[in-house]
């Protein structure tokens, strides 16, 4: 009887999951059509059209390496270096090992440096933990942590049924190592999640922006920054954002001049 109830519930779950997947299908199909339209425009040299199509897909909230990478290419071909660097950075946030995005980001930064280069004087104020977790994506560290975490509890469950003996001793040793590994992975994953969700990072979009002393155009300009510079947003005031450079220098600029990562 219990088995029958379980099977009925399983079947019901499969039906609901299938229904939900089917409901998502038209949206995904529309997304793909727009994405391919962007690709066609890009391949025919209509980069502005490609940007427009890719931005439409991005506006749907999809976070995809391919989408951000292609968008970066379209911006780069349009000569908009700030948005190009921003989108390559977004792609690398999702997959830090994406070689094409790394290559094109390097090319875009080299191009931007021909126009202007921000050389930050002073020690890098980025905390150590941020530098430790930044090279990995949330997905990579997530898989690592949850894999070890699942394995840890699997061993714990098996231990419950295993009689004393060599196997049980071996399992306890594995459990101890897994505890350490899971702890390290949890720290890395937690730090990466905090960095992604709480530490507001952004990229400067225009070729050159004056940084003001306060959240208004009438304030004095302290210094200027250029396209592609990575900054940290520490405060918001209406449409102004207070940013901090990695060497601790701070100032205000309009939020529209920033691409939030």
């Amino acid at each position, binding site marked *: 009887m219990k088995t029958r109830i379980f099977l009925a519930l399983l079947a019901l779950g499969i039906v609901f999951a299938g229904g939900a997947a089917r409901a998502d299908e038209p949206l995904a199909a529309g997304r793909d059509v727009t994405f391919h339209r962007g690709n066609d425009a890009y391949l025919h040299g209509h980069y502005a059209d490609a940007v427009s199509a890719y931005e439409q897909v991005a506006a749907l909230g999809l976070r995809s390496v391919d989408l951000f990478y292609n968008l970066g290419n379209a911006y780069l071909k349009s000569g908009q270096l700030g948005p190009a660097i921003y989108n390559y950075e977004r792609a690398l946030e999702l997959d830090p090992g994406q070689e094409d995005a790394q290559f094109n980001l390097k090319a875009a930064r080299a191009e931007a440096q021909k126009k202007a*280069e921000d050389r930050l004087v002073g020690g890098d104020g980025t905390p150590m933990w941020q530098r430790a977790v930044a090279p990995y994506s949330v997905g990579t560290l997530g898989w690592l942590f949850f894999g070890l975490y699942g394995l840890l509890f699997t061993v714990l469950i098996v231990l419950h049924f295993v009689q004393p003996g060599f196997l049980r001793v071996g399992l306890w040793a594995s459990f101890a190592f897994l505890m350490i590994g899971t702890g390290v992975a949890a720290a890395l994953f937690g730090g990466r999640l905090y960095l992604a969700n709480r530490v507001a990072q952004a990229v400067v979009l225009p070729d050159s922006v004056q940084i003001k002393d306060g959240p208004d155009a009438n304030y004095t300009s302290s210094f200027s920054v250029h396209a592609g510079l990575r900054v940290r947003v520490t405060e918001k005031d209406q449409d102004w954002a207070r940013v901090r450079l990695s060497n601790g220098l701070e100032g205000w600029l309009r939020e529209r001049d920033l691409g939030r990562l």
Partner: protein
Amino acid sequence: MKRFSLLSIALLLAAAPAQAAAVRFEAHVAQQNLTLDQTIELTVTVERDGNQVLQSYRAPQAPDLDLLHTGTSSQMQMSIFNGAQSVRMVEEHQYVYRARKRGSFTIGPAYAKIGGQTLSTQPIVVHVAPVPKNGYSTVAPPSQAQQQMQLAPPPDDAPSNQDLFVDARLDRPKVYVGEQVTATWRLYTQSDILKYRSLAEPKTDDFWSEDLFVPSGALAWDRQVVKGQEYAVALLLKKALFPLKAGKLTVTPLSAEATTLQSAFYANASAERRSQALTVEVMPLPAAGRPAGFQSSNVGQLTLEGAIDRTRVKAGDAITWRLTIKGTGNLRNVQLPPMAELDGFKVYDPTTKVTLNPGDVVSGEKVYTYLLMPTRGGKLTLPKVELPYFDPEAGKYGVARTEPVAITVDGDPTRVEGTAQTGARQENVLSQQIRPIHDRARLRGEVGERLFRGKLAWILLAAPPCLWLLVLIGDALRRRLTRETARSKRRRVRRSARHRLRVAEYHIKASRPSAFFGECARVIYEHLEYRVGAKVEALTLAELRAHLESRGFPKETAEAVVKELENCDFARFAPSASGPGEMRAALRRVRLLLGMIEKARPDDKEVAA
């Protein structure tokens, strides 16, 4: 040999100033007088020809100042001159300093080595004053631009009952379409201003507007007496306005918020002030005497100059023709008449460059640079160019013009084919390519992102410990359920007895007395074992009787048990003696006997033993 040496020296002497002129290396700061809370912005500019190599560069030294930020920007300017490309490189090195203490500090020279020549900038002295207690910087003397803007006479219609107001002024009430009228907004206050910010800029929709002054830092203050009261006055905004149409045109008020320190005993007070709207009467341009080809944007006192880089060229080589409009007026908007087709030349679209002079009156120059390509040889002529304009000061039209220029083109007087390419250097720029786009059939989001950045992560986090707890609970339940109690043992034995008796009935129907009595004996033994808690089947019947009695079974029960077992043994080994009636009677007896065994109360201590 001596002649050759002299010639070389002469050539070097001639070349040296040319080279020096080609390089610009200078430094300047945005503000030389400032307060401790302000930053010092230094810009070092290096401008050189593209073929000159910047061999080394040394940044300026300022040991008494903290360097906060450096930035570098570069710009490449390309131009085609005589068919050959020339490139100018402009590099700007920006430095932001902050003073640690008040005083005068020197920013040392920057050094650069360009084309073997070492250049240096002038040292710059900055004066740093302490931050004033009232919060705004008054130490900065007016900048050069501000010095040129003399204070207007005190406003007669100023509100006498206010210690803070914004005044707006026009320099003249009546102008022609396209003629400059200057609008100025000033802040008057009798209290110290802690903070000022503009809330609404004046709207100048009916004008072409040119900013003459926009505050880029702390306000600069001066003193002025208005209606017998002394005010601190600061220039907020100054615009040159060029009306686009005739009639009464209005500029909307400027709205600003100022935070004042009213007294030591009152809290800071913010006050919003609006200037008055400005109205100017704009006269249409006179129709009388308007020259042909006049464009309404050409209003001012204008002159036109033409210059050509050479008067003799080879067919196919390009000529640069510069037409410069100079004077006062809305120079950004001044336009040359469209260039007619020139006989013997292919004319490329011009580039324009506007350079304005600082000052209250908009003046400067606008340069049109045309690239001309002769399409045939012979004596060709660049015609005169005319620029009709209206002079508002004189109130009449005029025409500025250039003289015709004769050009000698060496080559076939018949049409030269392919002139656009002839002589022009082909450029093949090979730069680092970027990698191509990803053309995937289906666009997929990142699974890891979806899983681990949403609520699902919490579920994944809770699932393993929950599963572990479920396993622990399930196992504990299983143990509890499988543990045998007295009640469950009785149920089990009764169930077994029912089953065996049903089987026995089946044996009656099948006429199998041996099997029937075997089942009866087994059910009796099972019931006994349940009651006494030990195996009894191995005992002889006499031993069984004694054992049952010793365990507290009633004598008649023990006897009945032994008797029935004897009966079963006999019947099993002599089956022919038992018919169905005998078997049914035995079945009834066994049922009664099982009830008797259950009713017996054996000694518990013995059971436990």
